């Protein structure tokens, strides 16, 4: 039995004591018993005030009458019903304010984070496509280009099945810019020959099968006067090869930045494999419009430095 229990016992704090155990201790231990007795006497001397408090006459009745007067003439506030409600309107208002403040803070931050992630995804796609194009250029004298017998019916998006035929592109997700929220109609890449058949039997379906989010360089007019692909050392040329596609209707290319990034700008893949972000369509002093040639047409460039990146749904316009 420690002193804390001894004090509780002497103060009559029985609710915190194992009373039977204390009594057994006191029965068997004379020293503890004497200590408890002396403690009780000391506490009594220190705290006994004689209890000389007299209750005023009729205090209870006067109190009941006092309250009854208030019942007959309650104040306006007292007339309002007092109900036990777990929540008040003020509580809801505070909770709603905190929620709204949290949303106002969090939603833009989440949106910014998502935009950054999507932007990084777009850059990654172009880098991967750049690697495939570099490999294609190392195995061929030029970048992917439709066979000459296809005339001007081949669509720019054919660059992807050409690379698929060469075994250099398998992941169709690389052709989808994650920023625009639109998925391509195609779910898998098919061979160039298969597309050729589809073009003859179902032109509309064909156009959908080669409709990617990125515009591709359709080459330039060579010395012969005929359009042709980008040739030579791709890495040293440093020309734009792929980019977020511009706004278009399948025939014309409209003004403004790519809709992939809500008109804020476009990512451009260059021949050396680098990907850069441009706020306008001007990529160099020699090439004032990334998506049009120097005659302001979505046609092959007039010179090797006049890069023209055309939406994949539009034809190469090789003639």
């Amino acid at each position: 039995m420690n002193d804390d229990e001894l004090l509780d016992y002497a103060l009559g704090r029985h609710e915190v004591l194992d009373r039977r155990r204390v009594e057994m201790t006191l029965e068997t231990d004379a020293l503890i018993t004497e200590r408890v007795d002396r403690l009780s006497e000391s506490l009594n001397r220190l705290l006994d005030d004689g209890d000389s408090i007299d209750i005023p006459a009729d205090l209870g009745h006067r109190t009941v009458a006092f309250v009854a007067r208030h019942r007959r003439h309650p104040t306006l506030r007292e007339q309002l019903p007092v109900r036990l409600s777990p929540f008040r309107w003020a509580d809801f208002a505070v909770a709603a304010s905190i929620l709204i403040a949290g949303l106002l803070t969090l939603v833009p931050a989440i949106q910014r984070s998502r935009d950054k992630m999507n932007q990084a995804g777009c850059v990654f796609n172009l880098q991967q496509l750049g690697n495939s194009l570099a490999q294609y250029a190392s195995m061929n004298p030029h970048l992917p280009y439709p066979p000459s017998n296809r005339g001007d019916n081949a669509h720019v998006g054919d660059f992807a099945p050409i690379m698929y035929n060469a075994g250099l592109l398998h992941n169709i997700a690389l052709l989808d810019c994650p920023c625009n929220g639109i998925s391509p109609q195609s779910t898998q890449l098919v061979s160039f020959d298969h597309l050729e058949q589809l073009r003859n039997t179902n032109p509309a379906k064909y156009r959908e099968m080669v409709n990617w989010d990125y515009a591709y360089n359709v080459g330039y007019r060579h010395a012969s006067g005929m359009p042709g692909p980008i040739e030579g050392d791709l890495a040293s040329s440093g020309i734009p090869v792929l980019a977020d596609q511009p706004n278009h209707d399948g025939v014309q290319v409209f003004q403004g930045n790519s809709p992939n990034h809500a008109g804020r700008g476009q990512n451009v893949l260059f021949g050396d494999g680098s990907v850069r972000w441009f706020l306008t369509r001007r990529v160099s002093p020699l090439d004032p419009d990334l998506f049009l040639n120097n005659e302001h047409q979505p046609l092959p460039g007039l010179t090797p430095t006049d890069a023209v990146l055309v939406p994949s749904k539009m034809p190469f316009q090789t003639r």
Partner: protein
Amino acid sequence: MVKTVGSQSAEDLGQLADEELMCRYRDDGHADVFTEIVHRYERELYRYLVRYLGDASLAEDVFQSTFLQVHLKRGLFEKGRPFRPWLYSIATHQAVDALRKAGRHPAVSLDQRVGGRGGAEASNLVDLLVADQEGPLADLEEAERRQWVRDSIAKLPDSLRQTLILAYYQDLKYREIAEILKIPVGTVKSRLHAALEKLESMARTPARRLDE
């Protein structure tokens, strides 16, 4: 004449638990139920208020305002909640307000911290109390000693005085006091020990002997 509340007599009301009475008053608002509650706590609560306030007249006012609050706040009484701590909590708040209005304890707070050493070690306190069998107050006449006890308790810091009165004189349980004062049970014990140590210290001071 036996008054009736619905089908139940006042005699039957006397057999109901405090909590049942209060729930009935909350739901029906019968004056006879309220009267039973007031009379049941008349002596106990008035003595608490006199000891705490040190002024019989002020205690009477606070007693009445406490039961007015019981009437006004009856809708807040929850079923299953013990009535006694709820009543004491209202009375203590009313008493603190009264003291503040009287300007006697301008900064009284129900959860104010104990100054100095605070909760005394039980071992030291017990050793101190049992050390001298006669005690420092042994030389006083009984009436003088009782007056000294009343005066000394009045001089205690407010938080210690509240705890001591509730625990020793009102015989409330530690957990009930904790509920009334909105403090942990451990703090109740430490405040009680601190109050006893303070009283013992006051009993041993030369100033006490000068008062004799």
